[in-house]
């Protein structure tokens, strides 16, 4: 779904798509990121944080902005690399820097600030996200709000069953329901409520 533009003029477009530039360490790191390893994420911090902070601070941002953007960019990066068709066409640090760069530009644009930025590192132009992505993002935000509205203990109950794959009996014990059947009924009620909130929020938008 996400493709990147050309990196260097001497690399032809066909080469870019068929011969990804990857080192073995990047490959290992990618695996770690896909698993969501804290150690792998820490590695990304070490690799890229300083250049990103430098870029943002030099372009009318603060250190707090840099930390903020970097965190958001990490989320995007982790999701990007977990997609089935993802292919690394530059080094990971360049990709991460590019994501941060685009996010910061967007934020500057939203604040109607000037856009003559100083760059300190090579970056790759990233395509603007397509409509597909926009719809996904909307659903994501709706789920986030629906979950917040749902609150405890429904939220935890659903998580225990659908994410942690606990048995109904375990859930009954954990949440203090008299038996598995009661817990199951409760789970369906919670799911129904979540469904109502989620689609209501989605329809309003």
């Amino acid at each position, binding site marked *: 779904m996400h493709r990147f533009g050309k990196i260097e003029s001497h690399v032809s477009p066909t080469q870019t798509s068929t011969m990804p530039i990857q080192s073995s360490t990047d490959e290992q790191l990618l695996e770690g990121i896909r698993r*969501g390893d804290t150690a792998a*994420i*820490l590695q990304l911090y070490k690799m890229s944080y300083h250049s990103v902070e430098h870029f943002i601070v030099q372009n009318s941002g603060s250190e707090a902005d840099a930390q903020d953007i970097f*965190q958001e960019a990490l989320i995007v990066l982790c999701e990007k690399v977990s997609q089935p068709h993802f292919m690394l066409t530059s080094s990971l640090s360049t990709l991460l820097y590019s994501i941060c760069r685009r996010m910061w530009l967007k934020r500057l644009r939203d604040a109607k600030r000037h856009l003559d930025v100083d760059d300190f590192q090579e970056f790759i132009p990233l395509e603007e996200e397509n409509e597909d992505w926009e719809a996904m993002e909307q659903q994501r935000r*709706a789920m986030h709000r629906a979950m917040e509205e749902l609150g405890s*203990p429904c939220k935890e109950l659903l998580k225990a069953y*659908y*994410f942690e794959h606990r048995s109904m009996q375990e859930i009954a014990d954990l949440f203090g329901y008299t038996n598995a059947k009661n817990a199951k009924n409760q789970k369906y009620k919670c799911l129904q409520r979540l469904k109502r909130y989620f689609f209501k929020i989605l329809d309003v938008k």
Partner: protein
Amino acid sequence: MKWEERITWIEGYYEQRLSEEERQHFEQLLATDKVLQKEWEDYCTLRQNMEAYWKSQQLKKRIQQAGALFFAEKKQQASTQEKPFGADAAPVRKPKVWHYHLSSMLIAASVAAVVTVFAINFYKVNTLEVKQQNYYQALKRDIDEIREQNASLIKEREKEEEDMPALRQANTSATAFLLSAEGYVVTTYHAVENARSMQLVQYREQDTIQLDAALVHFDKTLDLALLKIEDTAFQPNEYDLKSLRLIAGTIDLGEEVFTLAYPREDLVYGVGAVSAHTGYEGDTLAYEISIPVNPGNSGSPLFDGAGRLVGVITGKHTQSEGAAFAVKSTYLWQFLQHIAEADSSFAACWQHLVAQRYAPLRYYKRPAQIKALRPLVFELKTYSQSALQ
């Protein structure tokens, strides 16, 4: 069909729990029933979004963890590393430094030699005493680093350690205590602030247990940290957590309190009383207590006469006057409650903790109380360089 019945079918189909016969039946229904079709589509959207939500929540937590580690490390480097050379020059500066500071390094070496001779003599006399002294020095050194940043001798030693990260074993030691069968453990934040990896050690009569743990949450102001044991060797049923009782209120001035800690490689019992309702420089988060504490007491639990948990020793200012400080359990309660609200995997543990209503150890004599509580107390060893890297 009622909604619940339909959703049971849908869920069974989605999770592929239906038998072949049921599956065919459901697919037939799905092909003809428009309402069911819509419901099925909605269900899929909902499930996928739910999963994506929890995944991203988990990811966010990990990113925050990594960020906290990164910035803590950065801060540490900034405070120990003075800036005569730029950070970029790091790879090439090493030979220069050797040459430039040769004299001070010779002094350092001779000091080390003298210390070693002393240590060996001590070792012959009494092994335990040497251990205690080592811990004492380790803590003392930390303080010196802050006070005398300009002393080139220390700077040299720091740089030397920085240059050889693989050899670095600058471990600190503190105390931590077990909270739940899920493996949640509480200690002070400053004990784990610069840690890259940590290990919980417990010395028992029959053996010594060593368990790996990871930082889950922390609060810098309260100086509290929540760790989780991440080790397959952890056997929750070996620990009797029923005797642990946390109080939400405060206790009175003059009330007797005791603590169990690992200032050295053995459990040490300390007893005293609450001597003030405020801690260091009027800190309202803490009690002042008159218990003689040693370095390494940080993070040890403070119990009242009935064996209830009333605080966590921070032991930060032990050097000033022989009075110790402990974070009030009121704030530990708040700290844990906030985590439980944000983190559903901790919520169950929290429910369990607050569900206990009385002090199970209140009629026990002190030795019996200690016997019940000591399995929950661990020595916490932290390593600033991860074993993996």
